[in-house]
């Protein structure tokens, strides 16, 4: 199985551990990722806060490339990217005038045909039962708090994925691999995201709440499917601990890390050794 791959800025930069994990894990499942040729930035928060047209045009360019190169499915492991791509797809496919305009702007015919997937959806596309069959190691002993953050399920009218307030798709997958996901209360709360650059206090406060709640409900690790969440919970964890005078010591895994471990991959292959928090 081959699917298109849109890394976005994070997976080629600060979160290249995530890329390594996703590639290794999917590779073990027989999925070949083909990176989109000459993809450009999705626009992220900056574009949709400043210029609505630009916010559509940026992802539209990448969608146009995907269509030109014949990708039916496009994995965007970063939820921000997948949301922006999906939003542009939704707007373009539902509005003939915009379709025409965008095709001119991005100098490529774009219809919004490609289906954009997040990481969880790729596992769903493969089939949870197939993943389970391929697993070699039980995840018993892992009590993950599955953390969806703000963008994996929202806005619901764009994402149309899982339940936006009470999601459960990661839990279902991990439980089938032997892990014991915990019920907790901060599944869909915000980690502070980009505030980490300009208002660190907010991020430390929110991350502290998320980590504390996970621990309180018996989690021994947190699972994310978002590079930004990983930054705020993993890289910033030492700062959180200093700021609040606590020891969280909470391992933060990408979803592909745990699935990869179940598939028998080692930590180095998955890039887990490059996380800031390590097992004590």
């Amino acid at each position: 199985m081959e699917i298109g791959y849109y890394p976005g800025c994070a997976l080629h930069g600060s979160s290249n551990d995530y890329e390594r994990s996703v590639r290794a894990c999917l590779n073990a499942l027989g999925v070949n990722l083909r990176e989109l040729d000459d993809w450009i930035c999705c626009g992220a928060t900056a574009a949709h806060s400043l210029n609505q047209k630009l916010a559509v045009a940026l992802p539209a360019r990448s969608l146009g490339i995907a269509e030109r190169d014949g990708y039916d499915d496009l994995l965007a492991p970063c939820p921000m990217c997948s949301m922006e791509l999906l939003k542009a797809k939704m707007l373009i496919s539902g509005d003939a005038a915009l379709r025409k305009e965008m095709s001119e702007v991005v100098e490529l015919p774009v219809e919004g045909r490609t289906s954009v997937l997040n990481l969880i959806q790729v596992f769903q596309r493969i089939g949870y039962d197939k993943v389970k069959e391929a697993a070699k190691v039980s995840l018993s002993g892992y009590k993950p708090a599955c953390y969806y953050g703000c963008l994996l399920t929202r806005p619901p009218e764009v994402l149309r994925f899982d339940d936006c307030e009470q999601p459960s798709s990661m839990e279902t997958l991990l439980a089938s691999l032997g892990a014991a996901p915990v019920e907790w209360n901060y599944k869909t709360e915000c980690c502070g995201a980009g505030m980490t650059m300009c208002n660190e206090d907010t991020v430390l406060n929110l991350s502290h709440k998320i980590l504390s709640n996970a621990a309180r409900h018996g989690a021994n690790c947190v699972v994310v499917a978002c590079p930004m969440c990983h930054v705020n919970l993993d890289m910033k964890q030492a700062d959180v601990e200093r700021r609040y005078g606590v020891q969280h010591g909470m391992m933060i895994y990408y979803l592909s890390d745990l699935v990869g471990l179940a598939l028998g991959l080692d930590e180095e292959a998955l890039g887990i050794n490059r996380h800031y928090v390590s097992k004590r």
Partner: protein
Amino acid sequence: MARIGVFVCWCGENIARNVDCGKVSEAASRFPGVVCSVDYKYMCSDPGQAMIRERIIKDRLTGVVVASCSPHMHLKTFRKAAEQEGLNPYLVEMANIREHCSWVHHDKEKATAKAIELVRMAVAKVMYNHPLDPIRVPVTKRALVIGGGVAGIQAALDIADAGYEVVMVEREPSIGGKMAGLSETFPTLDCSQCILTPRMVEVGQHPKIRLHTYSEVQSVEGYVGNFKVNILKRARYVDMKKCTGCGACWNACPSKKTLSEFDFGMGTRTAIYVPFPQAVPARPVIDANACLMLTKGKCGLCEKKCAAKAIMFDDKDQVVTEEVGAIVVATGYRLYGIGKQQDSAKLAGYGEYGYDKYKDVIDSLQFERIVSASGPTNGEIKRPSDGKTPKTVVFIQCVGSRDNAKGMAYCSKICCMYTAKHTMLYKHKVHDGEAHVFYMDIRAGGKNYDEFVRRAIEQDGAKYHRGRVSKITEEDGKLIVRGVDTLANEPVTIEADLVVLASAMRPADGVEELAQKLNVGYDEYGFLSESHPKLRPVETNAAGVFVCGACQAPKDIPEAVAQASAAASKVLGMFSKPELTREPEIAIVNEQTCAACFACVRTCPYNAIERAEIRDRKGNLVKRTARVNPGLCMGCGTCVAICPSKSIELEGFTEQQIYAQIGSLV
């Protein structure tokens, strides 16, 4: 030879401002068939009407055209005036030169030209009008009231007290509806049951009221004045005539775990039960799904204990037929459930409030049962999860109301008031407790209503936060309610012991099916449609069917009762005459040319057309034909348009008349 009179009205300045009425009248005088044409400042006034009447006599008019306002406004006025002089009222037509002309155009010259054309068309039409006689329909002076809540009770008693028989159908084992389960009522805090139960007893004992509880309307046939209603009486397994209501059976019943419908799941009941002690009739029913005898074939304790030998395990559903002349629908409401399973794809439930997964997140009707002296906790406020007295209670308003995204667009109207009441009742019982309310706006229009809300805030100390709640989670037995106070502009987190959701009011289950049986319209939410939102608030478009209470729109008790009395007065108005007269402007089938395709039967929105057979005197079938029931036809004309053989005409709007109108323009 036609002799038409044209009367052009100025409507004060309403028409005259933009239409030169003198010119219109002058032009009309030259139309063929017109023998007199006048204009006057107020044609609907006494002198105006006198002018028409005088002309009818003097000019021996055979048709009248009044060019003035909408026929909705004054057609009846002018027809009555003509009738007084012996002219058949259906020989009067109107040309609407106000709503259709002077009010919407500003160029006086063009508007005048248009008014002349409108009059020309009316004159062309009236030439082909022929006298019609009102349809007379006999009336069965007996009313059906569907629903035995406070609205139904009020309507039934009003009609019965006036001396007419009433048949009341109630789906539950007892009448009383939602109000019987309420604790105290705003804005006076008088006890709901104390006001209602005497009225329930009145219904139960009234010699003119026949009560069918645990029953539903199965089908409705006939038409205004002459309905035949089949009522499904569900098996009660208790002989109502023998039973004394002593209670030996339900005290003995070992199946005690069924959640009580009357307590909205806050308490339990036995398999043989009366929903509440003051039930009318005070006779139990057996819940066939919970009864050990009926499910497993063993037990029968109630039968052994019953001294009156009233238990009948072999009871069956039965259908009774009642004939009535008028129907009052008072089927009430239910609350929006926040759970994931919804009956409509448009509704999404409330994941942020946990979709029903937290035991201590309850709805307002459940809270009513908890504070009610007759409730499962005997009026002591205890939360469902562990029976502890909640020290902090959060009330959330507008759950599912005013929410286009996943609820109802409308305001449920009563939640602001009952939430204020809830905070008061709570504070009166738990003095050291805290009551928090999240609201969007406080809508407290009504006599003593705003004063009541202020009292909750100022005297009883309810804490009001203007804003929505974004999430409820559970942490160590506490409900963590996170929301925003938009006036203070800050997030609010409250650790609550109990959360009460003021969920949107929705029409009762099954009301749409009922509406279809009755040919009554309903809106996208299922609320029944009244004929006119202002002037015909309790009538429906189905003649002889009236609505009252929350089945028409969210409303509180005083409003429901007022509307019920209004519906009753309409029924009594119908019953006050020996027979009904209906407008004769209905469809008639030319049975000679009817091809019996019955497209009209399928298309008629009122089920007014039936399949008939024409037989010769020996009884041999000559042909089949469609036939309009004059009691049911509303004169909409849909059948006329659909008839492929052009065999249906609408009286007063015949093809000849319509073509004459069009012909006059070209």
